[in-house]
């Protein structure tokens, strides 16, 4: 079931990607190629097979509830914030978000 250009544009908008018409066309072709593979997979009979959440039959290990992030906080913060475009009073600054 080939994707339309409109669908490609919607996916791009959801992913915050700005695409030229040329790029949209290329992406549409590539996505359709992937979907054709998925269509083959979908012909497999999965009747009565429970959906698989993970490729391995193992379960999540749990961590005890304890604060382990105890490095000198302020120093860590300054280090992380040194790569941010703009910070003030410990806050990361971003273009205004209006609700």
């Amino acid at each position, binding site marked *: 079931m080939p994707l339309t250009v409109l669908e490609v544009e919607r996916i791009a*908008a959801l992913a915050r990607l700005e695409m030229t018409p040329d790029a949209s066309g290329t992406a549409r072709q590539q996505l359709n190629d992937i979907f054709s593979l998925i269509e083959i997979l979908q012909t497999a009979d999965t009747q009565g097979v429970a959906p698989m*959440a993970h490729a391995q039959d193992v379960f999540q290990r749990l961590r005890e509830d*304890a604060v382990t992030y105890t490095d000198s906080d302020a120093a860590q913060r300054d280090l992380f914030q040194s790569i941010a475009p703009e910070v*003030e009073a410990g806050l990361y600054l971003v273009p205004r978000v209006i609700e």
Partner: protein
Amino acid sequence: MTWEVVIGLETHVQLATCSKIFSGASTRFGALANTQASPVDLALPGVLPTLNRGAVECALRFGLSVGGKIAEKSVFARKNYFYPDLPKGYQISQFDLPIVEGGHIDIVAGQGEECHEKRVRLTRAHLEEDAGKSLHEDIHGKTGIDLNRAGTPLLEIVSEPDMRSAEEAVAYAKALHALVRWIGICDGNMQEGSFRCDANVSVRRTGEPLGTRREIKNLNSFRYLKEAIEYEVKRQIEILEDGGVIQQATVLFDPATGETRTMRSKEDAHDYRYFPDPDLLPLAVARDWLEQTRMALPELPEAKRQRFIRDYGLSAYAAAMLTVTLETADYFEAALAAAGNNNANAKSCANWIMVDLAARLNREGLEIAQSPVSAAQLGGLVCRIADATISNAIGKKVFEALWLGDGENADAIIAAKGLRQITDTGVIEKLVEEVLSANAANVAEYKAGKEKAFHALVGQVMKAAKGKANPQQVHQLLKQRLEGGEK
């Protein structure tokens, strides 16, 4: 034409763990901005989430308390959207396999004749991480981002659309709030955002299919919840009665105007493209872990309420009042144990807690756990009223003295202040004689049939006894003397 209101709530409960759901950073409220944001919370490259056992245990406690089904296997999924307070570009949540499914909360809503009990069904409860905080105060025309809250564990509890009025929605939210505090999974601090509700509201003409709903986001007080729903209902009915249609939307409530308004952002992005998070394996809950959690749960509010009625002979009202919080229930039982466990003492303890103690705590803005009068002290006081050492009126003085720390228990205060009740008939008779001879006018009025005059005389005797005479004896002796005088 009558309208039926249909409400379902989604509640975000911040879980009372010390560390975050997927990182070892602290969840403490009020730290300096971004000092509790670890590389995992910041979504730095190469990090992996590690699931907090404490957060899972909170979800189990909740599921067991509401009679929900705990999934033996649940799955974490990525909910994808872009927002500056979500550094990864997705929120780790649960989608088609949540940890808890089903369950219910019983509520009592309405007052007087309209008072009714109702069971609100729960759809599900799932674990997820909180986002950071966006500070919209203008910082050179920019928004500030604090990621300390990012990764704080949340339990999102989703109800069925079972509520039919703002009152029922508030009753449900209050019952849920009390429960999560009761079982110790949330501090319940609404100002700090530990308990936030989203309300899905629609209206329909009675008997018709469900109407289009609008979702009011982020209501962090019971009052706002009520006001927002009432406004939204009124507005939807007006639109429909004018022949309009309701557009499905996400709205925000403005407490300043009491109105809701449509959110401009996110409105076109309701396609979250959920998929299982490849960084996390399915979560398995072993049967013995679930059983241990069940054993460790405190007696639940409903069970305790019924036991209070059954074992202590309390009224339904008193039992409900005393089981509003676990602290209140524990205080009551400790006071009763100190007073001596019988139904009369139970009633007396309940009254002291609901009336005198509640009023005093309220006046000072204190919680019952902070009460200067301990449960043992109150029980001691109730005991001395029960055995007629002091009257109820003197009891109030002793209570005040206990509150002010004037003595270590009721007995010490009664002894130090000489408050022991006068029960010696001879002493009271003497006082009665004195009062009668000094108040001839009242005596005459009484004999002329004025009941009020009798009460004035009782008052005079009590005054002469400095409030310490046994009131029943004063009544009895005065009556005998007055009636006898006529013979």
